[in-house]
């Protein structure tokens, strides 16, 4: 009797436990309700956000097509595709969804194909169940257990060739709480291509097995061809919009140092993980067979270039895309070009200050010279001798209270116009460097030296045009 009572109690407790467990979101939301056919999109489009709050059965119909298409201007290639384009169709489902996957191999195809979805838990990621001969169709189903952004690809041997021909795409498994709303979502996928001919060689190019094995691609491109995201094909947004990029790398071999020139990713979800993102990222590494998504607000209008920051891929092999942002400029965020000044690296021999020269006004008085000379000094001299004239110990001699200058206007003029090299003692310290000769007009030399002689405790002499004409070494040369 006692035993029975205990059992009853236990059962009651169990029941209580069950009834308590039932209302948790996990239990309710993993129940499959209804059925829908997945909306699939070609890059750079992304299917709409999932707004339903429950798991459902999703039917995905993906057709494999082998077809000739454009790889670059005048260059075509036989792509093997999931859905007719490279990359393959973007698939968007929700965590907990049950997916019924139909892989259809078009009868015109020559090859058997299958699909390995990295979002699938199970041997081969679906590959084992989906090997499909041309003219046939395979069906398998899986439950989306883990949220995240995943690559899918063909995994039929030789897998490297199937992938090299463009058989990859992205599948997004939204977490139960959904994806936050943004103004634009784009789909970008990088891949490397190996052709018989060199980059740019015209006509239909066959796959080069040798180059693929050597991992020496002729093309590294976004979305299946050079120029797929440039010019009229550029991604577009308006100033102030939030943009989310879903970026995958199909490979087969190269990883991507993905970067948008002039943008900082506000958030990056590395490896396609939906857990807390990293903030303020410049360049994000995406492995072959991996993905990441990133968000940023476009504050400044203009064209932003997307690259694989392994830069010869961007500039020589095609890994370049554009995001064009329209809207009014905001000078406080980005000024545009304010000035164009001559850059003066140390140790060079001849400088032509063409820009300043063209506009140089002439001084009427000593005060004018000092005033005009200050600008010339700051443009040409301050980088080394400093705006305070103190120079840099052991590198650049001081001009302030410099014994070298005292009563030595001809030497100063010679130094500015002809340069200086070798040992020099100034105020008791030895220097051994190079000062370039300056292509300054007589007026400018007079002004800048007058400024120097009247600053930082120097004597206050005026250097005149006549002085300069008399002592200058290099005649004025206008290079343009």
């Amino acid at each position: 009797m006692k035993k029975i009572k205990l059992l009853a109690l236990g059962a009651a407790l169990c029941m209580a436990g069950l009834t308590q467990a039932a209302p948790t979101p996990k239990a309710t939301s993993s129940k499959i309700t209804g059925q829908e056919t997945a909306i699939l999109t070609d890059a750079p489009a992304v299917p709409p956000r999932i707004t339903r709050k429950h798991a459902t059965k999703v039917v995905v119909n993906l057709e494999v097509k082998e077809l000739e298409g454009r790889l670059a201007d005048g260059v075509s290639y036989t792509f093997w595709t999931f859905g007719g384009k490279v990359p393959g169709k973007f698939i968007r489902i929700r965590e907990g969804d049950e997916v019924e996957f139909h892989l259809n191999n078009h009868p015109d195809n020559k090859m058997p194909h299958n699909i390995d979805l990295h979002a699938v838990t199970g041997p081969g990621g679906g590959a084992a169940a989906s090997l499909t001969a041309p003219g046939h169709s395979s069906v398998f189903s899986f439950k989306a257990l883990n949220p995240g952004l995943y690559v899918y690809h063909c995994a039929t041997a030789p897998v490297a060739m199937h992938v090299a021909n463009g058989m990859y795409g992205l599948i997004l498994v939204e977490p139960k709480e959904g994806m936050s709303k943004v103004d634009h979502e784009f789909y970008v996928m990088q891949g490397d291509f190996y052709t018989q001919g060199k980059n740019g060689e015209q006509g239909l190019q066959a796959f080069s097995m040798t180059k693929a094995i050597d991992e020496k691609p002729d093309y590294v491109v976004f979305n299946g061809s050079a120029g797929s995201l440039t010019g009229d094909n550029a991604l577009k947004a308006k100033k102030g919009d939030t943009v989310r990029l879903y970026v995958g790398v199909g490979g087969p071999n190269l990883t991507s140092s993905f970067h948008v020139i002039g943008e900082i990713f506000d958030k990056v979800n590395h490896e396609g993980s939906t857990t807390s993102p990293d903030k303020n990222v410049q360049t994000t590494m995406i492995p072959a067979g991996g993905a990441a998504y990133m968000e940023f607000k476009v504050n400044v209008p203009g064209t932003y270039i997307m690259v694989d920051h392994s830069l010869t891929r961007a500039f020589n092999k095609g890994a370049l895309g554009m995001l064009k942002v329209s809207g009014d400029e905001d000078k406080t965020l980005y000024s545009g070009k304010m000035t164009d000044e001559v850059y003066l690296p140390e140790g060079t021999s001849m400088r032509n200050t063409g820009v300043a020269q063209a506009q140089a006004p002439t001084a009427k008085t000593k005060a004018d010279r000092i005033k005009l000379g200050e600008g010339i000094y700051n443009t040409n001299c301050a980088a080394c001798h400093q705006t305070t004239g103190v120079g840099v110990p052991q590198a650049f001699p001081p001009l302030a209270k410099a014994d070298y200058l005292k009563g030595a206007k001809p030497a100063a003029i010679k130094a500015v116009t002809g340069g200086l090299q070798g040992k020099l003692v100034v105020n008791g310290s030895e220097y051994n460097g190079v000062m370039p000769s300056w292509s300054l007009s007589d007026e400018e030399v007079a002004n800048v030296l007058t400024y120097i002689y009247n600053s930082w405790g120097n004597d206050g002499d005026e250097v005149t045009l006549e002085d300069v004409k008399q002592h200058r070494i290099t005649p004025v040369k206008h290079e343009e």
Partner: protein
Amino acid sequence: MKSKHSTFISTLVLSSCLFSAVAVSAEDMVRVEDMVLVPEGSFTPFFLKKDDITNSSSVATTAVDAFWLDATPVTNRKFQAFVNKHPDWHKSNIKKIFTDSHYLEHWQSTQGSADSADLDKPVVNVSWFAAAAYCEAQDKRLPSTDEWEYTLTDNDRDTENLQKQIMAWYSVPNKELPTVRSKPANGFGIFDMAGLIWEWTADFNSYMAPPDSRNSGDKNLFCGSGSLNASNLSDYAAFMRYSYRESLKGNFTGKNLGFRCAKDAK
């Protein structure tokens, strides 16, 4: 699916045939009608057979006995003659378990016969069952995969060029099929082993693990595991041939899938 069909060859009649053919032939290659005697030899198979999988030692060469092989794939003309003689294999009569729905679908005339322009092109859209039945009706059989692969290797006469030829075929989309014998024969005197169509073999899926890898260990052709027991990892062409065969079932047909027949030499 192992081939279990019998060949019904009358050894006596056949061998007398052979000897007379050998006697009259002035060429190196021995021919009877459209068949060529492929001499015995050996080759390095691309994958180990299922039977060999337990044997983990490195890949050995496989010996192949001499056998007769059709010099070209079976043409529409020949298959039409077969269908006329054996109406069970007409596209309107064929039993559903022997084919998928595309059987002879390129034969578009109302009578379900081959287009006259296609007569010398290889017959395609035939299932393994139909191919095997055709060969049997000629007192022949489908070649084994070993025989077929051995013939393709052509005694390694020009392996690199052969691979290129195959890869070139793989990398262009489907076009109109050419007629058989459009390109030179290989060293054995056999035409169209590469660059025309896929071909059925008697034991087309005997090399592979079952299509579900869950109970096959790692010996299958998916993804990286495909390279585990291959003999030449850079032979992409062979990878594709084997995975193509792996994707087939006996009732499948394909726009690029035909066959030729073989016969024992003795």
